[in-house]
C-alpha cells in the first residue's frame, strides 16, 4: 500500500475526530504515551478505560488491515538492535517530555499550548537530525 497524501489526510481526520470525542465526551487528552503508561503502571479506578483505549488501537489496526494492503509493512531496514534502542528512547523521552505526536502534536497544538508547540518543534527537529545522522553513518 502506497499511502498517499489523501490517506494521510483522511487518517489524520479520523485521529482528530477520535481525539475530539475523547475530549468532549470523556474530558481527556488523547495522548497515547500517557494513556499507555496508565496501563503499565495502573492507578486504582483509572485503569479500565485506558486498557480499552489501547485494545481499541489494536482493533483499529485490525479493521484497517481488512481493506488496506500491507498497512504495517516495515521495509525501513532498521536492525533489531536499532528497533530496541529506538523503543527505549521513545518510552523514556515521551515520559520525560510528557507526551508524543498525539498528545503534543495533535491535542496540544489544537489547544495552542506553548509547551506542546515547542515540544513538537523539538521532537520533529530531533527526528530530522537523527535520520540525517543515521543515513550518514549507514550510507557514508
Amino acid at each position, binding site marked *: 500500500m502506497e499511502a498517499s497524501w489523501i490517506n*494521510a*489526510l483522511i*487518517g*489524520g*481526520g*479520523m*485521529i*482528530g*475526530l477520535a*481525539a*475530539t470525542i*475523547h*475530549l*468532549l*465526551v*470523556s*474530558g481527556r487528552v488523547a495522548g*497515547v504515551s500517557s494513556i*499507555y503508561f496508565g496501563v503499565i503502571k495502573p492507578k486504582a479506578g483509572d485503569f479500565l*478505560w485506558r486498557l480499552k*483505549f489501547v485494545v*481499541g*488501537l*489494536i*482493533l*483499529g*489496526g485490525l*479493521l484497517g*488491515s481488512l481493506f*488496506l494492503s500491507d*498497512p*504495517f*509493512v*516495515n521495509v*525501513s531496514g*532498521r536492525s*533489531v538492535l536499532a528497533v530496541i*534502542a*529506538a*523503543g527505549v*528512547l521513545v*518510552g523514556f*523521552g*515521551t*515520559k*520525560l517530555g*510528557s507526551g508524543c*505526536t498525539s498528545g503534543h502534536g495533535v491535542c496540544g497544538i*489544537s489547544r495552542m499550548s*506553548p*509547551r506542546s508547540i*515547542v*515540544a513538537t518543534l523539538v*521532537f*520533529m527537529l*530531533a*527526528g530530522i*537530525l537523527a*535520520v540525517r545522522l543515521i*543515513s550518514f553513518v549507514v550510507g557514508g
Partner: protein
Amino acid sequence: MKQGLVALIVGTLFGLGLTVSGMTQPQKVISFLNVFGHGGQWDPTLAFVMIGAISVHFFAYRVKKHKTSPFFGDKYYLPDRKDIDKKLIVGAVIFGVGWGLGGYCPGPAITSLVSLKLEPFLFVTAMTMGMLIQEYVFKQK
C-alpha cells in the same frame, strides 16, 4: 460502563486513522523525517496527518469553551502547565531521536502489534522498559 465503551470506540477510531494514514509504516515516517533528502527522496506526505488531525480537533476546543463539563463525567482532565522546562525539551529530543531511529511512535507501534510482526513487539516492549526506567530510575521526586 459507558466511559469504557467510549474509550474502546475512540481507541478503535484512532487506531484505524493511524493505519489508514501511513503512520504505521516506518519507512514512510523515516522518509518524512528525511528532510535533507539524503540517501533517498524526502516524502512530506505524513505532514497531512497532523494537518488533517488538527483541522478537525482544533474545533473541539472551541466547542469545549461552551461546555462546562464533558458529556460523560464531571470534569475535564487537561494539562494546565504553561512553563517550558528542561524536562520537556530533553524529553522531546530523546523521543525525536528514537522516532527517527525506529520509525515508530507510541500509537502506531501499539496499533501495529496486530500485524504480529517482530518489530512492533520489540519496540513496544522496549518502549515499556524505557517508560519504566524514567519512572523508577531517573524521575526526580
